[in-house]
């Protein structure tokens, strides 16, 4: 039986991807960012999953305004890095898991979570930067990935609670897949940041620290926070944090926090990162 063994949350800042791709990781500005992921890369070597369910948002790459799926699941066999205006990132092609993805889609739709099924799409920095942070720069990615895209570009995104409940449905779906697979779920985006308008550059360390605390210890209450609170307190793009609830909802109520990292700034953004293990899911 497939089972979810751990969750990872991390920011997915494009400048972090550029710093990796351009070999700037040892520069004074970037060093503290990447130092926070040294533990993670080591942990990942010891805990490489078969498949990652990678929750992220597309940044006007695969989806333009002609259609805006609130939740979408990538069921293709592979996904190419998107050209976001400066050429595609030179990272390996992302390998999907069509059988598991189709199983999950069927399971959660019949469980009343109506995901859009996507059979062809490119994946942008929202998906590939977390992979670079967790896996480094391999010639091929060490596991398969099922992209789960959440709309946070056009208001309103799904609520935190809806994301949390989707995580629970994903966990049920994984639990009914026959093949013996070690699965992780990642939630990406955030933390506090605002990329637009005269208020650009907003950072709220207190908000972020509280969010990191409560996501681990009291996610059900935290998931009730309305969108406007994210926008006001954590910046207009801080609302991406709703995606972390999909990750948290897919894990057990009680989790073991094995890593926590926070740093300001990376470009415009506060970097936040958690690794949470499901205690009873040793592979």
């Amino acid at each position, binding site marked *: 039986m497939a089972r979810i063994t751990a969750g990872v949350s991390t920011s997915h800042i*494009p*400048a972090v991807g*550029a710093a990796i791709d351009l070999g700037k990781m040892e520069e004074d500005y970037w060093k503290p960012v990447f130092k926070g992921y040294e533990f993670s890369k080591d942990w990942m070597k010891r805990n490489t999953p078969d498949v990652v369910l990678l929750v992220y948002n597309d*940044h*006007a*790459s695969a989806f*333009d*305004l*002609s259609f805006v799926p609130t939740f979408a699941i990538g069921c293709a066999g592979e996904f190419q890095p*998107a*050209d*976001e*205006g*400066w*050429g595609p990132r030179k990272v390996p092609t992302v390998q999907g898991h069509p059988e598991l993805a189709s199983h999950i889609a069927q399971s959660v739709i019949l469980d009343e979570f109506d995901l859009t099924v996507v059979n062809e799409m490119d994946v942008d920095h929202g998906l590939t930067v977390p992979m670079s942070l967790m896996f480094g720069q391999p010639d091929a990615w060490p596991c398969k990935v099922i992209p789960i895209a959440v709309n946070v*570009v*056009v*208001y*309103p995104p799904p609520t935190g609670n809806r994301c949390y409940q989707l995580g629970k449905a994903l966990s049920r779906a994984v639990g009914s897949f026959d093949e013996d697979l070690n699965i992780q779920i990642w939630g990406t985006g955030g933390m*506090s940041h*605002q*990329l*637009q*308008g*005269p*208020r*650009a*550059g*907003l*950072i*709220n*360390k207190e*908000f972020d620290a509280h969010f990191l605390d409560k996501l681990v210890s009291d996610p059900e209450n935290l998931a009730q926070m*309305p*969108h*406007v609170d994210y*926008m*006001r*307190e*954590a910046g*207009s*793009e801080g609302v991406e944090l709703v995606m972390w609830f999909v990750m948290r909802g897919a894990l057990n109520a009680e989790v073991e926090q094995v890593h926590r990292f926070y740093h*300001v*700034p990376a*470009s*415009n953004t*506060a970097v936040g990162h958690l690794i949470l293990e499901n205690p009873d899911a040793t592979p």
Partner: protein
Amino acid sequence: MALEKPYKDVPGTTIFDADMLRLGYHLNQFCMSLMKSENRDRFFADQKAYLDEWPMTEDQKQAILDRDYNRMISLGGNIYFLAKIFSSDGQSFQFAAATMTGMTQQQYAEMMINGGRSADGNRYIGEQE
């Protein structure tokens, strides 16, 4: 009943909702076209001529030619779509964000290194200095 917009009192912030989407639909779709290198080449060969192929207002086209990101946002541009313009220009998100705040990129980068713009005094319209 009009759409509820509880975020209208957040200062210096435009939320990309359904009304902004309608206003900026073609502006944003133009931005998407810059994801293809052949379109980038055509755009840079003659920016005005390329913009004239799109059913945008003259105000929207002028804002693009001026690289006035606040103006583009007020006319329905969404930052993730507008990113295709400054990425095609070879500029970073930090460069674009700095231009929207009226700071130089250097001043903006220093503000970020010092912990960013505080939420205090920036939560509601009217409370900023």
